[in-house]
């Protein structure tokens, strides 16, 4: 037992020296790392780069040449890359990578996260017409060049991510559809372009994105910064919209899979069978397109397309109490090969909680381990490299299997967590409560809260209260854009400091509007959805939080928390809200028109009567016979009776 521990210590030492080296290198002012330095300016980018499994390795002696980290392309320029890999291969115009991360969750669920990344060394912004497509999907390429899109992020999610049970997801997304786009600053009419773009995307993804219009589009001023390289962050070129009601199903998955170079024919994508994917607690698929640096001086940019699919399986419930899962059980497929077009194809299994293999047993065993700081926590992964034939073994198929040995184990509580609900009763007014939990024991941190509320819930900003620990917590920045009826939604962005170990409650009253009868959905009494609030934050890292050193680490590395790991960016989405509105009676427009017009006519009639007539003494009418007699008498020239 002592020997492997010793070797582990040695490896950790190696890891640390290496990470320090990387930090030092990345301090150099390269354009690509400016985002690193200005973390507050552009936190997402920093988080994204950090999130990628960094270059830690503890390779077996036979695999020394495997030194290129698969997903650290953004960090590639920083690394002392062994010449054997990069110089031997000619520089590719485009590159495709695929990976699957599997994280056993403490609730007994399994979280599987697919990422497919295509990097294409091309630049649409130069105006040159690009017509030759290889790995990059042409349908998206055309959209990007036609609508001058700088960044595009779209996600379709079914189900709600339970942060308190599952921890943070690698890529957060709100229930329903979410779309946010940064346009090039050459676009003159952003709104018209946005409208066209949503309609085109609606066709590409077979989704109801065409329902995105000015009433659910906002321009967040701070919460959504560009994730790729950007030279301007003027939020006039940003559009953000969510469709919380969007239902995600097979018809959205199929076009999404078609964007992959191998389709669903080979590689990790063969696992994506809709009958299993949608039989899950949570399903989220996304497409992220952004410009990234091509090389170290960052003179030219590449276009990065990242297709991600996150799914949470509740195997504990469906497995008759046995805690055991395998690729076959989850996806009803096993893997036989990597996508031939992929430059790297890997499966990562999160084994952090299983250092002694006393929690679960992984088979087939792999010797490859990888460490990465993911979401502020140092995680260890077992790696299966699908490009290596040895991974598939003698049976020529890979079916990773985990069998639990014990059910205990506690999850580190997520440091930031948010929830939301509607308070009040009746259909006249209500109150939106947003709760934000800071579970850090001793550090406070600021969060950006973004709320986009449809116009038919009339928010009263003077009723906005922010309280933490029973005291008023004044936001240091408030950006509020009131709604315009039938034109645009409310937008509220706030920067709130969350005190350590506290719950911060944001409340705001609203009034429910009565709409025109044609503006209601076909099921008006189901209620109206209000999209999730978005909480974006730079959260102090749990690695930095860990001052009592349980792991054996070199003393020089543990006194000051390293800058790179001191905080990380996360985005937390709250639940969408379902709010009932008062409804008119849909069956009686004719009756209402008739009745109201009758009342107006009563008013008109009685006034008209009095205005045009005058009082006269009523003389009794002569009888009919008398009148006829009078007519005859008049003809005869005799005076009437």
């Amino acid at each position, binding site marked *: 037992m002592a020997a492997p521990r010793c070797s582990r210590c040695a490896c950790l030492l190696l890891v640390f020296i290496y990470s320090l080296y990387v930090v030092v290198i990345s301090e150099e002012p390269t354009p690509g790392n400016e985002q690193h330095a200005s973390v507050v300016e552009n936190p997402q980018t920093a988080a994204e780069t950090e999130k990628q499994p960094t270059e830690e390795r503890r390779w077996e002696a036979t695999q020394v040449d495997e030194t290129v980290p698969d997903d650290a392309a953004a960090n590639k320029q920083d690394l002392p890359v062994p010449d054997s890999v990069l110089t031997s291969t000619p520089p590719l115009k485009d590159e495709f990578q695929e990976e699957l991360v599997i994280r056993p969750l403490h609730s007994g669920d399994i979280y599987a996260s697919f990422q497919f990344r295509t990097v294409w060394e091309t630049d649409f912004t130069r105006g040159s017409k690009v017509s030759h497509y290889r790995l990059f999907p042409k349908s998206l390429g055309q959209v990007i060049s036609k609508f001058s899109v700088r960044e595009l992020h779209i996600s379709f999610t079914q189900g709600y991510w339970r942060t308190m049970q599952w921890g943070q997801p690698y890529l957060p997304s709100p229930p329903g559809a979410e779309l946010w786009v940064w346009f090039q600053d050459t676009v003159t009419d952003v709104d018209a372009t946005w409208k066209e773009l949503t309609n085109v995307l609606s066709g590409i993804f077979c989704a109801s994105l065409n329902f995105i219009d000015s009433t659910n589009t906002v321009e967040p001023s701070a919460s959504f910064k560009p994730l790729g390289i950007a030279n301007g962050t003027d939020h006039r070129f940003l559009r953000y919209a969510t469709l919380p009601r969007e239902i995600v199903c097979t018809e959205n998955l199929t076009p999404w899979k078609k964007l992959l170079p191998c389709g669903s024919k080979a590689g990790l994508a063969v696992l994506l069978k809709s009958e299993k994917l949608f039989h899950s607690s949570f399903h989220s698929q996304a497409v992220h397109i952004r410009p990234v640096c091509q090389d170290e001086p960052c003179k030219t940019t590449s276009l990065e397309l990242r297709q991600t699919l996150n799914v949470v399986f509740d195997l504990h419930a469906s497995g008759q109490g046995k805690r055991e899962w395998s690729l076959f059980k989850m996806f009803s497929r096993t893997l036989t090969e990597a996508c031939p077009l992929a430059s790297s194809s890997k499966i990562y299994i999160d084994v952090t909680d299983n250092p002694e293999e006393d929690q679960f047993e992984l088979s087939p065993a792999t010797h490859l381990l990888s460490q990465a700081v993911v979401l502020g926590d140092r995680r260890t992964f077992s790696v299966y490299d699908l490009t290596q034939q040895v991974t598939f073994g003698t049976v020529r198929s890979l079916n990773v299997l985990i069998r639990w040995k014990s059910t205990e184990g506690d999850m580190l509580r997520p440091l930031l967590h948010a929830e939301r609900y509607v308070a009040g009763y009746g259909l006249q*007014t209500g109150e939106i409560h947003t709760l934000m939990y800071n579970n850090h024991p001793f550090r406070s941190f600021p969060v950006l809260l973004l709320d986009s509320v449809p116009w038919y819930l009339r928010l009263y900003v003077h009723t906005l209260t922010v309280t933490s620990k029973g005291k008023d917590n004044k936001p240091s920045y408030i950006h509020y854009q009131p709604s315009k009826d039938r034109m645009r939604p409310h937008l509220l962005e706030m920067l709130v400091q969350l005190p350590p170990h506290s719950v911060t409650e944001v409340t705001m009253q609203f009034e429910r509007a009565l709409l025109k009868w044609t503006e209601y959905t076909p099921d008006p009494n189901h209620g109206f959805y209000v999209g999730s609030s978005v909480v974006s934050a730079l959260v102090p890292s749990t690695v930095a939080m860990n001052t009592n050193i349980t792991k054996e680490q070199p003393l020089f590395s543990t006194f000051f928390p390293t800058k790179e790991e001191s905080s990380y960016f996360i985005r937390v989405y709250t639940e969408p809200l379902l709010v009932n509105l008062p409804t008119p009676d849909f069956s009686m427009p004719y009756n209402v028109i008739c009745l109201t017009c009758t009342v107006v006519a009563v008013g008109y009639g009685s*006034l008209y009567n009095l205005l045009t007539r005058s009082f006269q003494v009523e003389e009794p009418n002569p009888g009919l016979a008398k009148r006829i007699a009078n007519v005859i008498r008049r003809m005869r020239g005799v005076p009437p009776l």
Partner: protein
Amino acid sequence: MAAPLSLLLVVAVTIRAALNRSSLAELIAERVEVVSPITAWKRVIEGLALLDLGVSPYSGDVFHETPLIIYLFHFLVDYAEITFMLADVITAVALYVAMKDFNKQVFRKQKFSLEAERYPADCLELIRSPTEMFYIPLKVAMFYLLNPFTILSCVAKSTCGLNNAVLSLFVLTTIKGNVLLSAIFLCLATYQSIYPLTLCAPAMLYLMQHQYVPVNPRRAAFWWFVVQYLFMYLGSLFVIVCLSFFLLGSWDFLPSVYGFILSVPDLTPNIGLFWYFFAEMFEHFRLFFLCVFQINVFFYTVPLCIKLKDQPVFLMFMQLAVISIFKSYPTVGDTALYLAFLPVWSHLHRFLRNIFLVSCVLLACSALFPVLWHLWIYAGSANSNFYYAITLLFNVAQILLVSDYFYAFLRREHHLTAGLYLKKKDGSEATLVLK
């Protein structure tokens, strides 16, 4: 006379202060009958909050009051309760003084007519005695101050109370014969809610009679007076609109205040006829019916002026009633203003035909508004039609009330010229009909 009035004021202010301090105040402030999207105090506060955040209050669709109101409450927001009580007191006192003056004129006119023996002999019953007229101003003040509608409106801090104060000052200055102040107060009222525009005509008629200008379109003096008055009116309107522009630095308030009043985009239920009608309207008929409904307010001005050109104060009452019934966002505060004039026409009671029925309906509706609202919005056991039905009934009752007074007024005028006990040709008792 001052003692009962001050006692009344003290009682009225006490009631308001007590209600303001009770838990009912919050409930009242939310009532849709009492506050409309324009007059709601909550929205005024919201406008101030937006201004504090550096956002134009008119960039959203919550605040629809005029810029002057927002600047008034920028300074007075802490004294809002007192401001609204003061507005009610001003309204009552102004109406009191105005009606006192008006009574004197009515009495003088009656005396001249009697001396000239213009009235038929059997009309002595219709002649008004000073004793019965003595308490009319006090009754008017009482009708305004102790009217539950006014009290609710004041407790809810509905800005309707301020509009009423401006309108009553307009009535006062008109009856006092001050042309300039009359034009200025009318312009303020118009600036607040467009509709008082129609009060231009009774004001001019009254002032012309006051200054012995013949009401005859063929005379140059008539037109000269009209031009003078309109110049003062439009001039002050221009000044006040420009002032608002300079206060805010933009014309945003024009569509947000007047566009909002005229195009009725907010369908929050109220006691008027617009909300449910336009919630249920077919989209392609919307503009047509919007025009029809809005014209309704202005439509009656000219015929009423012709019919009532000798009685401008009654014309004013009619116009106020028509405005409060047919305006796009009416509240009970608007109703309270014209109801305050009813004691002035107490001598018409013998000719009213269905006052009992109408008052019963009005009372029943006032009680049913909160009940059916509760059933629809909170209990969920009724739907919108219930509340709508009550608003219909309430408006029918108001229309009947107004037309009944109009009928009674015309009939009394007729009796004053033709005699009270009319005989048929054959000597039997005759009945009067409208023909």
